[in-house]
């Protein structure tokens, strides 16, 4: 539908290569006895888009605030481009920040908002104006410079906030749930635009969100946080397909969790006993715990025309629900409730309700993980 307003082909800002690395070493933040962030190690490579993903209270925003310099950390060290910034005030950290509600200055026009950082840097008036206009052009708001924030829509305010955070060529961009206030369609559009802009500028981004879809769509790397700790980090599809714990698996989307006992572990793979479903060969990342389960995403379960030895079982179809693009089938097998999701275009009315079916899955899509709960 709507084309991207932010143009990717404009000349990138002059910017020395290899800039914009953010590093956190053993960073800890406590308020009295409450530990908000616990011994956190995190690196954002130059040009990398890293998302801190977690529920509220997981410490992700606190972490970002410590990078920006708005919160002091209790111990540890924050480095930008290899230099410790622990004692630097926010104004000297050279980081662009976009807040959840944009925090645009309501008494200034869009252009004055964008100019602000340059004004603080004593850039001469004509150059300042030119750069601010360029920055507004880059986010497709070249003609809106005179408007006050209250005269702009949510999406436009977000773009002004982006232009304001980018106009002074910051070392990196920090985004704190910047799309929480937008409706779904606009949010998806802005996700793509921000991603495109980030790639064209080659700027590092530390992004904070609790929305796993947003994290999946935008990140080079997702860092999943819980209770002030990193529980898993990796490329989006890696974290999604190979979660280390049932909590990560459930937080990132729907999944089938089948409790199991480990029979044999051989490096990347393990043989597990799924109880009533027999034995299966699954992916293993060496997670250690007391109780284990196998996680299979609903879209990785497939109907099978015949019995499959190992990674498959007989099941009974309970209900099928058409969700538009996909169909969700609920099944029971060996005393477990399972969910199977397939494209509606693939789903013929071939199964009678309450019918006996076969399901199967690929060994590399079934992940051995630790049951925490």
């Amino acid at each position, binding site marked *: 539908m709507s084309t991207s307003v932010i143009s990717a082909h404009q000349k990138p800002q002059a910017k020395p290569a290899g800039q914009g690395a953010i590093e956190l070493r053993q960073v800890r933040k406590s308020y009295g006895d409450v530990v908000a962030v616990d011994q956190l190690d995190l690196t954002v490579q130059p040009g990398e888009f890293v998302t801190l993903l977690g529920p509220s209270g997981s410490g992700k925003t606190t972490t970002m605030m410590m990078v920006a*310099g708005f919160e002091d950390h209790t111990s540890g060290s924050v480095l930008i481009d290899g230099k410790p910034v622990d004692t630097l005030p*926010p104004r000297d950290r050279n980081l662009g920040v976009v807040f959840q*509600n944009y925090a645009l200055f309501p008494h200034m026009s869009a252009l004055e908002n964008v100019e602000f*950082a340059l004004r*603080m840097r004593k850039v001469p008036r004509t150059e300042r104006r030119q750069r601010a206009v360029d920055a507004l052009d880059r986010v497709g708001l070249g003609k809106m410079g005179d408007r006050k924030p209250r005269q702009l829509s949510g999406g436009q305010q977000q773009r002004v906030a982006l232009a304001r955070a980018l106009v002074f060529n910051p070392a990196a961009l920090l985004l704190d749930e910047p799309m929480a206030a937008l409706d779904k369609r606009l949010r998806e559009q802005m996700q793509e635009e921000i991603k495109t802009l980030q790639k064209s500028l080659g700027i590092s981004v530390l992004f904070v969100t609790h929305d796993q879809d947003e994290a999946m769509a935008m990140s080079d790397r997702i860092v999943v946080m819980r209770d002030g700790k990193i529980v898993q980090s990796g490329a989006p599809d890696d974290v999604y397909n190979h979660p280390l714990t049932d909590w990560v698996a459930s937080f990132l989307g729907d999944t089938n969790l089948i409790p199991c006992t480990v029979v044999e572990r051989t490096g990347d793979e393990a043989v597990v006993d799924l109880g009533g479903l027999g034995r299966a060969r699954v992916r293993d990342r060496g997670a250690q715990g007391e109780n284990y389960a196998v996680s299979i995403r609903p879209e990785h379960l497939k109907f099978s025309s015949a019995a499959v030895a190992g990674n498959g079982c007989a099941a009974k179809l309970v209900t099928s629900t058409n969700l538009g693009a996909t169909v969700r089938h609920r099944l029971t097998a060996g005393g477990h409730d399972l969910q199977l999701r397939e494209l509606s275009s693939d789903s013929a009315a071939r199964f009678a309700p309450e019918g006996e079916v076969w399901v199967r899955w690929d060994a590399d899509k079934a992940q051995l993980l630790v049951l925490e709960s």
Partner: protein
Amino acid sequence: MSTATLPRTRPKGRDNPSPAGAAPKRRRTGWWLLLAPILVFDVVLFLTPLGKLVASSFADNAYQRVLEDPLVVRSLVNTLTISLASTLVTVALGYVIAVVLCNAGNVMRVVLFAVVLLPFWTGILVKNFAWAVLLQDNGIINAFLRGIGLTDAPVELLHNRFAVIVGMVHCLLPYAVFPIFSSLTSIDDRLGLAARSLGATEASVFRRITLPLSAPGVSAAGLLVFIISTGFFITPVVMGGPGDMMIANQIDYYARQLTDFSGAAALAVVLTVMVSILVAVYQRVLKAGGQHEDN
């Protein structure tokens, strides 16, 4: 009044009954009866005496008489200068207190609120005499100044303009603190964070963000404080010298010493008109200033 259009719109509502079955509207013919008590009160006890006062001010050439009185002209000038000075000091001091209140912890905030509100609940006479005790020649402040060897003879702190302004500022402070405080608390904290991330120093945050966004509270406080200060009567008597009489003292003098009621009425009207003109100019200037907040 908008209520007057109700009888005409009601039949239309009946023709199109809402499907949800809304409760039928009550007839509202007697609505003005609810206003009757306050109307009677206002007309009998306020508007009538006010009308009488204005009418009596035109008797006996009163305006010419009072405006030719050099003491009246003197006290009009006093009223304006003392009110202006008190307003400036009160708003500046009130701003500082409001900023401290905003940044204070919970306990500190309660204590400060109590300190600010206490003069609000104390009689003006009590406050002024308390200041008189503090400021007099053998009062605490002079004793302190002598004690640290800053002065040998007592410094004259009472019965002058300085003392009048001190007494007035003390009374006026709450009227400045609260409007400014409420406009400061309505500023989103993240604006300050955003400005800092964009390179602003604390001073720039104050000048570019906090001050302009709290301007409505400051202007409201200034207006309120100025209007109240033009009517001060006791403070110039208790704390001022003979040269610090304000217009309210002059009205009192005309009414009670000279028993010149038409003169007193004329003075009251002159004060009201003068303050009204100043307020109108003030608001015009503010409006013009609001058009282009940034240079």
